[in-house]
């Protein structure tokens, strides 16, 4: 059976259609790098996206490069965990 250890499900709140479109681009990648639990629909609805552990770094970099950043609380929690 597949093992999902280390995978993360990210909840993304897109500001506008342009950001939603960036997420839709991820869906078209072959092979697929992410698995949408709640797909990109409209800006008022959150997008839930499972990211395999092996793709986390690339996907987060992609999101950050397009202005989709982790919430401060999570950054703090990650920093604390590293310390």
């Amino acid at each position, binding site marked *: *059976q*597949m093992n999902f250890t280390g995978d993360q499900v990210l*909840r993304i709140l897109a500001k506008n259609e342009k950001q939603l479109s960036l997420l839709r681009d991820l*869906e078209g990648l*072959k092979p697929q790098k992410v698995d949408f639990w709640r*797909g990109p*629909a409209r800006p008022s609805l959150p997008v*839930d996206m499972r990211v395999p552990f092996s793709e986390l770094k690339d996907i987060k970099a992609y999101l950050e490069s397009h202005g989709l950043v982790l919430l401060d609380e999570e950054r703090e929690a990650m920093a604390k965990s590293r310390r």
Partner: protein
Amino acid sequence: LERSTSSFSYSSYHTLEEIYTWIDNFVTEHSDIVSKLQIGHSFENRSILVLKFSTGGSRRPAIWIDSGIHSREWITHATGIWIARKVSMDRRGWDGVEVTCPALFQNRLWRKNKSSRPGTFCIGVDLNRNWKSGFGGNGSNNNPCSETYHGPSPQSEPEVAAVVDFIMSHGNVKALISIHSYSQMLMYPYGHSLEPVSNQEELYHLAKDAVQALYEVHGIEYIYGSISTTLYVASGITVDWAYDSGIKYSFSFELRDTGRYGFLLPATQIIPTAQETWMAIRTIMEHTLHHPY
């Protein structure tokens, strides 16, 4: 293997094999009201089974419930099983049918079926985008790698074709309820269009009543409305096909939760979810019963 349903845990998730064993035991124990029908095979050649609840007669007005078209929505399989037991215990004089959906063994977070075609790298078609109404429109995808890939043509998938054939040949289904997760929503057609259906006001008020009945069980809040205005535009979906085929009361549930656990809803929430969902379904069923057409 269990020899009866008395030792079956309704508050746990189960494998397909366990569910199929439960079905056989359940039918044996309630043979006066429940029968098992095989209506076709999945792409991987597994039996597609329907439980029929009936006090007799043939092609009486019926209500169809499917609970688990998408394999990773585990809470829907568990809820479906609990509801089947509840219906047998209530012993009302209605005809109802329920389908189980093959769950997948290796990837328990898989959404689609497992169909493959020569020359296509990715596998699987979204069985909730393969229906005829609005097929191929917005809210579905022609990319085989997409989770919402609609397939090469309407009803191309054996799972969908089997259900369509069954419902059309029955000819007297008056309500269709399709259960998914997650998001805590109760919705009616259309998904493929923003255009309201002809009895939109009736469906709106029925959804409102059903959601209220659900809320009164454990205080869980659902939003409700048409699929396209509540969630998103989605084409080729089950309830749109059902409505366009003349089934006036067609509803789609999205069960718990709103994303804290998503598909990985803890098993401790199975029974509460099933209890509240049942009250909403009963509301829809009773409205159907009292508004024959």
